[in-house]
């Protein structure tokens, strides 16, 4: 899948601004079989991006190329054959199931819908899928409320696997689970990716989880990707000040930075002018004068290693050499 300059705008409900740009000029390639992590704080647009990739929101501009068609502009008829390739696993498994359906019936719906199997074979397939995710075929007879959150998340994964997707978007799929269950599900996702080569877009706010699971990481801030690179390079050599701030946040005794408060809705629409200059400049400790005038693009030494910052690694501004160079 190749995403090009994807933008998604919503009409704004707050006074002052007329639109909210939830996704702002995002370009990213998702390779076959890779696990890419979308990380960022709440409101950074990571969930919205994931949903837009699957056509749950229609993009305002840009393209999502997949198998030769543009999902962003395609009509329902041309999208249909690709729907089964693109699937989603949600944060709260309980709300992804009809409480009146038995697990087996919930799982059978997509199998029937996509004409994968029916009758006797259907039951066997449901059993096989449940076993694939570490449950037993008996679970098919239970109701959602009889299963724990971890078991239900396994069922949600099994249901998605049944239709043979090429890309799964997992939205905070482990963040509501307990520590011991989270480890089980993370191991399961990794094994599934390894065994069947399905691509995963893994949305999380937890960097250590992303580090365990993902091959590449895209850091999002205010609807934009601000840094993109291999998991290793993000952790060993973060360029964007926001990425570095997120990495530091895992350590105790943070100096309080009042600039972090600008995420609060009281100031968000007012102080962050999102159409000129760098979105992050109000919180940035290493901003330079250029950040107020121009918006940094996502650039870097290679397509695989990019960041949107004029002052990567955060050197303090020293005006003298810049002047000398200008002359």
């Amino acid at each position, binding site marked *: 899948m190749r995403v090009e300059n994807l933008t998604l705008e919503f009409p704004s409900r707050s006074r002052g601004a007329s639109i909210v740009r939830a996704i702002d000029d995002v370009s990213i390639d998702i390779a076959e079989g890779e696990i890419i992590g979308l990380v960022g704080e709440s409101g950074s647009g990571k969930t919205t991006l994931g949903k837009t990739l699957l056509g749950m929101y229609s993009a305002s501009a840009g393209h999502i190329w997949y198998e030769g068609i543009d999902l962003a502009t395609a009509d329902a008829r041309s999208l249909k054959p690709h729907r089964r390739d693109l699937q989603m696993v949600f944060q709260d498994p309980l709300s992804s199931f009809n409480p009146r359906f038995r697990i087996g019936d919930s799982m059978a719906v997509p199998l029937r819908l996509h004409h994968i199997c029916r009758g006797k074979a259907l039951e066997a397939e449901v059993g096989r899928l449940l076993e694939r995710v570490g449950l037993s075929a008996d679970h098919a007879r239970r109701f959602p409320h009889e299963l724990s959150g971890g078991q239900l998340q396994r069922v949600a994964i099994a249901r998605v696997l049944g239709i043979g997707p090429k890309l799964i978007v997992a939205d905070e799929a482990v963040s509501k689970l307990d*520590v011991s269950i989270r480890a089980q599900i993370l191991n399961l996702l990794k094994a599934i990716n390894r065994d069947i080569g399905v691509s995963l877009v893994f949305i999380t706010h937890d960097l250590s989880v992303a580090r365990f699971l993902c091959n590449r990481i895209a850091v999002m801030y205010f609807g934009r990707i601000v840094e993109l690179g291999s998991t290793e390079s993000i952790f060993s050599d973060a360029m964007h000040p926001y990425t570095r701030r997120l990495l530091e946040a895992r350590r105790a005794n943070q100096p309080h930075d009042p600039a972090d408060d600008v995420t609060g809705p009281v100031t968000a629409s007012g102080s962050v002018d999102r159409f000129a200059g760098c979105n992050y400049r109000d919180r940035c400790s290493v901003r330079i004068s250029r950040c107020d005038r121009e918006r940094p693009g996502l650039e870097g030494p290679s397509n695989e290693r990019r960041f949107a910052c004029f002052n990567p690694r955060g050197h303090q501004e020293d005006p003298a050499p810049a002047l000398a160079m200008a002359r």
Partner: protein
Amino acid sequence: MIGEDAVLQVAELRTTFFDRGKPREAVRGVSFSVRRGEILGLIGESGSGKTVTGLSILRLLPEHAKMEAESIRFEQHELAGMPDSQFAALRGTELAMIFQDPVGSFNPVKTIGWHLRHAMARRQDSNAISAKTWQTDPLLLLDEMRIHTPERILDAYPHQLSGGMLQRVLIGMVLALRPRLIVADEPTTNLDNLVERQILDLIRHHQRRLGLSVLFITHDLTIARDLCDRIAVMYAGEIVEMGPASAVLDDPQHPYAASLLRTARSLEQHEATLFELPGEPGQDARQRSGCRFAARCPSVMSPCQIDDPPLVRVSPQHHTRCLLHVQ
């Protein structure tokens, strides 16, 4: 168990929920104490009974739950058996609680300023305190909660503030009550990492400054390590390990605590496969005798199925509930 310096001393607390008449024990004979000026961490996974323990002490249980205790000693008061009318005067003044979801603690149609003045007035009614020890100005209070430009907050309504900001205001309100003991139930679970750190630092700062005692309920081991002086680990309604934070987290004696830490460590150290504790918490909840953890325990022995393990002392301050340590 612990001497004179305890602010809260709980002995044999039992809380039972009645689900259509059927009893289910959520807390099964828990005993612990919170010393003056310390943070005691109550850690465990969902369903372990940690939140119910906190709610029981504050008498905030739903109607279908029944709580009994040999004794709940709070300062000079015996809470077990105290009439509700008398208890109501303590709750919200000497004994306070911070909840996971700050939104629910605010009246949506009243401003932040109204809430703060209300909290301050409540404390002044119940006890004469000197102006020197506590602020009477809401602005100063907000400033102490490290809220940038507090003026703009006073006239705001709760829905206009971010979760982190609301939690700061709530902590300010709780501190304005000048409580002797705060029960904090996962106060940062819904917040982003950066904000979470700042809130924890804020709690720690004021706790030290005021010499407060805190019962801090969390499922997050990293938070427990950074914040707590002592830790009690709960499993299936019982405390299975209790001791100084460093002893419990660096040298856990109970197989459950050891497994949890091993899982957390395998994530921190980026191991290729995470350590998994098999099974689900609560799978053995209905079991009548023997160790509640036996079915999942990697070191299970035959007597574990029959004998209730006692709380054994492994070092002067460190206790564990496991037959492995019974001589």
